[in-house]
């Protein structure tokens, strides 16, 4: 099969994937550090809203913690792999893993909105839509604009 030249948009998509994968790693590290320290944060000087937020974090169950970790890890991994796939214009690593990332990310955004308390950024708000922008764009673009470029 003749190799197609990689369009600039696909390169941009790969770069954005790598940037977001980096954010996922930072988020993993930040979450790990926060949850090891959260029980020792003094709340007596805080106002009611801040205290409610810290208490909500302290009361998070192990299941929720595992969910946050697993989703961050999975998203980061899928972003990284699909970014490489876009650069190499591969069907499996690019198109399939890219679709998997988009679906996982959309599902996790919806589940997070339903699962977590409002104090923890749960509930549907504009930031939920911001979180959906990139996965939806990915889903649309790799299945329309760039579909014929991910065939190696």
């Amino acid at each position, binding site marked *: 099969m003749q190799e197609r030249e990689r369009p*600039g948009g696909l390169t941009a998509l790969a770069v*954005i994937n790598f940037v977001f994968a980096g954010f996922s790693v930072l988020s993993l590290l930040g979450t790990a550090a926060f949850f090891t320290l959260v029980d020792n944060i003094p709340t007596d000087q805080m106002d009611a809203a801040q205290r409610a937020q810290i208490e909500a974090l302290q009361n998070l169950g192990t299941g929720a913690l595992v969910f946050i970790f697993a989703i961050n890890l999975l998203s980061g991994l899928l972003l990284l792999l699909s970014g490489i796939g876009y650069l190499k214009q591969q069907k499996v690593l690019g198109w399939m893993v890219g679709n998997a990332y988009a679906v996982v990310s959309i599902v996790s955004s919806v589940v997070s909105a339903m699962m977590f308390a409002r104090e923890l950024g749960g509930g549907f*708000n504009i930031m939920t839509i911001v979180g959906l922008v990139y996965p939806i764009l990915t889903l649309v673009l790799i299945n329309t604009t760039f579909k014929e470029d991910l065939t190696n």
Partner: protein
Amino acid sequence: MIHLKTLNAAHIRLIAVHWSRHAVRGGAGLVYLMIALVFGLSVAHMVIMPVEQLMTVQERERGQVDPEAVRNMIITVGEPITQFVLGLRSVEEIAQQDTGHEQPNARNFVGPPQEATNDAGSESWTDFLLEDRPALLSAIFLLLLFGMPFAISFLAFNQVTGDIQSHGLRYLLLRTERGNIYFGRFLGTAAFSTAVTAVLIAIITLYLGLRIQIYPAAALAGWAIHGFLAVAILMLPYIAVCSIVSASVDSPFLSLVLAKLIIGGVLLFAFLGGLKWEAVKLVKYLLPWGWQNHLLHPEPSHWLAAGLACLLYTGVFLMLGYARFDTRDL
């Protein structure tokens, strides 16, 4: 000498449609789409979040949300901020107003010329934005009018410069004239920018209408259309600035950097220079910075004049860029 006789409407339309349809595929469109949506929605979140928190507190304490109280809170909090953003009051004046000592005539640097407004006018403008129109949408539009010119160069920086660098234009010039490429790509960029603006404002308006529910749907829809037109028209002169830069340099990266420096630099220079010399503040009128908020003015004469001025700036910048593009070595 500018050769406009070679322009062909069918060619321009074909190039514009192709350019806007392939903006995402080229990369610049994708980056702009991400930046515009994330910036616009984050701005909306910043404005709407405190209101959502207030509504949550009301619901918890009273069992229901009181839309009138929420609207009044928005007006009370938003009035001094809006007056500052519109350049009708300086920070010092707002502080003095709070303590009962008002100085009505001083202006900050982003405001219109002093003779253009007075206290009654300034109050009516603020009241119009906060009371007569959905205040949350007004606040978001003011922030978009300020912020979107910084984002537009990510879309418009590479209208012709990449093809100049790669000498790819030589192949296109076998089939059409320079003017058709130049104006076609400008129109394609403008069409893409307008479509992104429409999507952004539609998302924000739908969220306000379906989720927040403190404004009537008709008022939201009407003001959303006005705000969309304001942002869409304001983008045109800034895209035209990028057209000049893109037609003048041989490197896409240099074009992006120069476009950013010009668009941001004019405002920064006017601000910093204005601190030392009053006359330097006028530099901001080289671009629409000085009067672009008038696109949201209550008087039709003001917003119509501002809209026409946008088109005039666009025409002048486009012609300057075309004069360069038409005569340069490709």
